[in-house]
C-alpha cells in the first residue's frame, strides 16, 4: 500500500488529539518563556554563554517535545487501538515510518519557530551581552535547536514503541535528562558528553570545547534516536498486536 495515505492518516491522528496539540503548544510556550526569563535574569553573569542563555528554554521545552513523541505513539496502545491501526495498515514497518514522520515534521516546524521566538525575546532581555553573536552562530543555534528537539521527540517515540507505554518511556527519559545532566554529568565527565541531551545541546552554545562539536554532537543524539526508533520498529514488527 502507498505511503502517502498512511502518512495522511497518522497526521490526522495527531491533529485530532488535543493533548498532542497541547504538548506542541507547551513546547513553544515553555521554551520561549524560560528563554525570556534567562534573558532578563542572567545578564549580570559575564561567564555565561549568550547563545545558550537565549536558548536555555530548551531545558523545559525538550520535556514537552519528549511528551509529544511518547504520547503520539502511546495513544495507539489504549485498549487495543493498535489492533485497529494495524488492521487498517498491516504493513507494520510502513505504518511505523509514517507515525515517525508525522511526529518529526511538526516537532521540527514548531521547534524552529520556537527557537526563533526564544532568541528574539531573550536578546531583548540580554541586550549588550548578546551583541557579540554573529548571524551564523544564531542561525546555527536556531536550526540546531529545532533538530535537537525533534531528535528528543523521536528518542521518546522509539522508546514508547519499544516499551508499549508512554509513561514508561517518559519515566525513563525525564529523570535521565534532569538528573544525569545536572547531577552526574558534572561529576563523571567523559562519557556523559555522549549522552543524548548533552551531545545534542552543544549546538546551542556560542563557544564549546570537548570531543564533540555542534554537528557531531547532534549526530550523536541522532544515533541515540535512531537506535530507539530501530528498537521500537523491531517491537512493532515482531510482537503480536
Amino acid at each position: 500500500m502507498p505511503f502517502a495515505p498512511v502518512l495522511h492518516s497518522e497526521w490526522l491522528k495527531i491533529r485530532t488529539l488535543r493533548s498532542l496539540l497541547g504538548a506542541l503548544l507547551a513546547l513553544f510556550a515553555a521554551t520561549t518563556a524560560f528563554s525570556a526569563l534567562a534573558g532578563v535574569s542572567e545578564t549580570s553573569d559575564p561567564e555565561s554563554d549568550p547563545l545558550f542563555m537565549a536558548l536555555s528554554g530548551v531545558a523545559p521545552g525538550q520535556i514537552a517535545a519528549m511528551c509529544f513523541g511518547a504520547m503520539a505513539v502511546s495513544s495507539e496502545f489504549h485498549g487495543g487501538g493498535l489492533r485497529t491501526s494495524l488492521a487498517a495498515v498491516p504493513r507494520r514497518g510502513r505504518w511505523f515510518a509514517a507515525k515517525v514522520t508525522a511526529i518529526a515534521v511538526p516537532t521540527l516546524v514548531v521547534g524552529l519557530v520556537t527557537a526563533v521566538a526564544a532568541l528574539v525575546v531573550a536578546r531583548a532581555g540580554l541586550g549588550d551581552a548578546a551583541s557579540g553573536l554573529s548571524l551564523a552562530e544564531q542561525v546555527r543555534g536556531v536550526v540546531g535547536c529545532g533538530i535537537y528537539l525533534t531528535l528528543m521527540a523521536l528518542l521518546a517515540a522509539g522508546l514508547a514503541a519499544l516499551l508499549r507505554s508512554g509513561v514508561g518511556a517518559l519515566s525513563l527519559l525525564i529523570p535521565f535528562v534532569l538528573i544525569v545532566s545536572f547531577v552526574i554529568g558534572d561529576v563523571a565527565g567523559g562519557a556523559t558528553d555522549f549522552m543524548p541531551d548533552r551531545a545534542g545541546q552543544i549546538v546551542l552554545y556560542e563557544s564549546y570545547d570537548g570531543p564533540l562539536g555542534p554537528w557531531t554532537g547532534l549526530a550523536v543524539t541522532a544515533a541515540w534516536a535512531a537506535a530507539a526508533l530501530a528498537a521500537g520498529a523491531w517491537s512493532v514488527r515482531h510482537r503480536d498486536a
Partner: protein
Amino acid sequence: MTSIEVQSLTKEFGTRRAVDDLTFRVLPGRVTGFLGPNGAGKSTTMRLVLGLDRPTSGTATIGGRPYTALAEPLRHVGALLDAQAAHGSRTGRDHLRTLAASNRIPGRRVDEVLEATGLASVARRRVRTYSLGMRQRLGIAAALLGDPPVVLLDEPSNGLDPEGIIWIRGLLRRLAGEGRTVLVSSHLMNETASFADHLVVLGRGRLLADTPMREFIHARVQPGVRIRTTDPTALKSALAPHGHDAVEHEDGHWTVRHARVDEIGSIVSAAGVPLLELAAEEATLEQAYLDLTSTETEFTAHPQEA
C-alpha cells in the same frame, strides 16, 4: 466469492495452546456463528486471520491471500475486535476519518456509516462520552467503512440495548443477503440462534463442530411435543400402545419426548383425547450446545478413554 480459509492453524502463548490445529472455512452469503466458551480461542483466531498475531503454525487466508498481503485491507475485510479500541479523546467521526484516510476511503463514506449505525447525532462528541452500546456501534461503523465483502465481528451485541440487538440481527442478515462473508463470535446462544445460518464451534482451541445450525441442533436434541388436555388418563392410554409416554409439568402441560407433532397429533385425535393445545417443542441451540460441551467435558476429563 471471498471466503475465509483457516488451515491447520495453531497458536501457542508460552506453553498454552490457545488455538489447536484448527481447520475450517467461512463461506459467503450466510452468517456463520462462531461459538465457544470464554477462552476457547475465538478472539485469538480472529486476530490470526487479521494478521495481528502470528500463528505458531498453519495459515489463515482471505480469498486465498493472507490478510497482510491485501492492499487497502479495509476495502476487503471489516473487523470489530474491541469496542474500547477507539481513543477516548477523539470524536467518533475523527476516529473513522483516520481509518478511512489510510485506505483512501472517501470522507463521505464516514458520514454514511455514521448514519447507518445510528451515530450521526453523536458523531462530533468525544468517544469517552459514549456508552458501551455506542462504542460498539462505532466499532461496527469502522468495520463497514470500506464496504468490505468480508465482515468479522467479535461479540457485536455486547452492551447493545434491546433495540440495538434487533438492529444488529437485521444488519447481519442483510450483509449475508448481499452475498458477503459474515463471521460473528458470541457466547450468547439465543442471540446467535437468531441470526446464524451456520456454526463453527470451538472448545479449548479445537474445532468441535462446523455444521449448518439446523443440523447442529437436530443432531443433538430430540424434538418433543407439548400437549394440554382435560383428560390425562385418556392421553396416556392413547400413547402407550405406540411406545410413547407423556410427562406432566408443574403448570399442567404434558410433554412427549422424542416424538414429532405429526405423529402424536394423529394418534391422540384418533383416540378422541380432548385437546386444549398441541404444539411442537423446538429444540434450542442452547440445549444442543450444552449437549456438545458436556460430552466434550467428559472427553477431556477422562483422556485415558480417548
